[in-house]
């Protein structure tokens, strides 16, 4: 599949560098340079109800995360990559309306593998079903907000919550069990986790 959006090498290096540095100017630059073309592409899909702004923000979020975790190898230009992600989002939405042919679906799978982001969005939905105290203790245990570590020891959690370490462990255990049950009860999630 040929995509017509181009970015020169110098721009691309700056974009990747800016994203890795969390530079807001880079995001603004990407918006200025690419939103128009992607907006036109989204508007050309007749049977989807997605807004160009939403598709662009979602696509850019995925591109940024993929650059950070090294999934984006730079084989294609950043423009093409971002355009492809956004187009893929539209095609998936289009597919949901049962209007896409099997061949087109195959084409999407080759272009960008995005089951990972489907899993993330499902996890966010399940997370929303947990109460705030559970979200808090799981966030603490999984090191959300920590700079270097993805784990927080129960003794540290206990000190933050002004409870005992055993109490912290028990609370986490109960909340994690709730999360597991939500996952097990969700057929879509099980499919993605296999």
């Amino acid at each position, binding site marked *: 599949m040929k995509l017509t959006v181009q970015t020169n090498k110098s721009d691309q290096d700056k974009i990747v560098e800016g994203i890795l540095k*969390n530079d*807001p100017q880079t*995001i*603004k630059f990407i*918006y200025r340079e690419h939103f128009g073309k992607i907006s036109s592409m989204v508007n050309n899909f007749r049977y989807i109800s997605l807004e160009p*702004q939403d598709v662009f*923000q*979602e696509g*850019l*979020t995925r591109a*940024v*995360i993929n650059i950070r975790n090294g999934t984006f190898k730079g084989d294609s230009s950043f423009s093409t990559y971002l355009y492809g992600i956004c187009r893929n989002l539209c095609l998936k939405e289009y597919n949901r309306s049962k209007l896409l042919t099997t061949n087109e679906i195959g084409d999407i799978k080759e272009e960008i593998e995005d089951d*990972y*982001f489907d*899993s*993330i*969005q499902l*996890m*966010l939905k399940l*997370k929303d079903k947990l109460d705030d105290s559970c979200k808090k203790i*799981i*966030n603490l245990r*999984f*090191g*959300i907000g920590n700079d270097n570590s*993805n*784990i927080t*020891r*129960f003794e540290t959690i206990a000190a933050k919550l002004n409870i005992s370490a055993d109490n912290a*462990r028990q609370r*986490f*255990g109960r909340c*994690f069990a709730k*999360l*597991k049950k939500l*996952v097990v009860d969700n057929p879509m999630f099980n499919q993605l*986790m296999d």
Partner: protein
Amino acid sequence: MNDKDIKLIEDYIDGGLQGEELLSFEKRLKTDKSLSKEYKQRIKYAELWIDAADYSKTKAGITEIFHKNEVSFFQANRYLIFSIAASLIILVGVYFLLVQDNNGNINGVGNQFADVQDSIREKEKTIVFQYDEPVKLAVMDSVGSKIQLLFPINGEAFSESEPITFKWKSDLNLNDTLFICKESDRKILLRLRINLADTNYTIKYPQFTQGKYLWYISDIAYYEKFSVINR
């Protein structure tokens, strides 16, 4: 999966197992499918939870930048936007002023700003009231002097339905405008297109309400008065 094994998994993740306990746990991970599955799930869910948090944070950051970008567009162009808005307000204000003036008629019956066809005036010597366009307010002839107002003068009184013939004297043969205003606020009620050589103009159905009025021709230096009374 029992609570003891769950505690073991958490201790292992924390690096809290040592010596024989650690070796035993790692051996079980290789042989105990249930424990192995539980451990892998624990790791997988944690990764996904962390990635989901990172995703949310990243998207929120991008959305915020877009929002600021949109706000900064308005900030950067605020003078232009204010200028356009101010121009529109002025235009709307001028439009309403003109329309109000145009509708400021007597008895509330349409606009009496007459722009009478020459043929009608010559034949009937009578004004025919008709609605006009505001833009014509700007089209007024200016004659200056050498015009003498003859009638009505000095507050001559007319009844409400009585025709009024305005008379003047002039040596000029030019088109001009006869103005009629209310004395109290000097608001122009009528603009009548006349020819100075005609020397008079009759309004058959004046529709003036009771009150005092002024009349004059174009921008001559004086006016005359008449009044409308109920007889």
